[in-house]
């Protein structure tokens, strides 16, 4: 397969998966096909919006509501690119683009995506679709620290030291990326029985 065909197929795949498409590069080599793929993108976008609204967001599929809060909602979803289940956090439509601090939600999420550490939830991406800002991360089947404390009381000894060490290492990784963790609560910490 020549590189031109590969570029065409990648654009077609992105259209099929409801992802954003940049036709500029293809347009330099094959402007006529780029124009036609642009038409196809509009048609596909309209169809995806009408037939699958509610079950998809961008390229993520099979959305199942897992929880809701003041920030928006969390869904369990399938990422066909990663071929795994992910957690999708969608902001409410109103005020979707900005955080209470005034920071841009997606820009912040993209910065967080640079952090790669075994004790930090991996952010796989962030974007806007259908007027809603969202980010997707590992899906974790596990127990939050809040649940653990409610289940069997305070931590002691080795377990307490292990949890504190893992939290400290996670905070160090976030801070090393130039980000400030404004709040850290037990509900935001989770033992990873299984990821993905």
């Amino acid at each position, binding site marked *: 397969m020549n590189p031109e065909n590969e570029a*065409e197929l990648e654009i077609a795949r992105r259209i*099929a998966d409801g992802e954003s498409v940049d036709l500029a590069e293809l347009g330099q080599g094959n402007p006529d096909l780029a124009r036609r793929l642009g038409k196809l993108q509009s048609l596909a976008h309209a169809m995806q919006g009408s*037939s699958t609204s509610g079950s998809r967001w961008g390229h993520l599929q099979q959305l199942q509501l897992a929880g809701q809060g003041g920030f928006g909602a969390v869904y369990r979803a399938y990422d*066909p690119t990663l071929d795994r289940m992910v957690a999708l956090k969608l902001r409410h439509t109103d005020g979707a683009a900005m955080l209470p601090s005034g920071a841009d939600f997606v820009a912040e999420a993209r910065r967080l995506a640079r952090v790669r550490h075994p004790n930090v939830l991996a952010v796989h991406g962030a*974007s806007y679709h259908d*007027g809603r800002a969202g980010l997707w991360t590992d899906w974790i089947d596990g127990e939050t620290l809040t649940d653990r404390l409610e289940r069997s009381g305070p931590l002691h000894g080795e377990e307490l030291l292990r949890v504190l060490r893992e939290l400290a290492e996670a905070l160090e990784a976030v801070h090393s990326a130039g980000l400030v963790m404004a709040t850290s609560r037990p509900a935001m910490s989770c033992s990873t029985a299984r990821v993905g």
Partner: protein
Amino acid sequence: MLAYLRTTLLNAIRGEIRRVGRAGVVESLPKDSGMVGAETPLPRPDSDQWLDYENALAKLPEIKREAVLLRLEFGMSYAEIASALDRPSEAAASMMVSRALVDLARHLE
């Protein structure tokens, strides 16, 4: 005979989706759809563009036409498409859809 029944069934389902879907729901997309900064809003297709799409679709071989329908119009996952079109894997189904879409685009005016 099976291919004929399959095509008839697909057309019936398409008709039903359009009856309740495309015409009305596309018009009710959120007003701020795609307007929050990261993506350029896509123009809504008009009736001529839908006709162009139908004509291009009709020019595809049947198996490619079905791949386009199942993915774009029915919103099926690649696992479902692989099963429906007898492909060995989700990756094979994805590649088939992508190739069908490139062909479809070439037939658009």
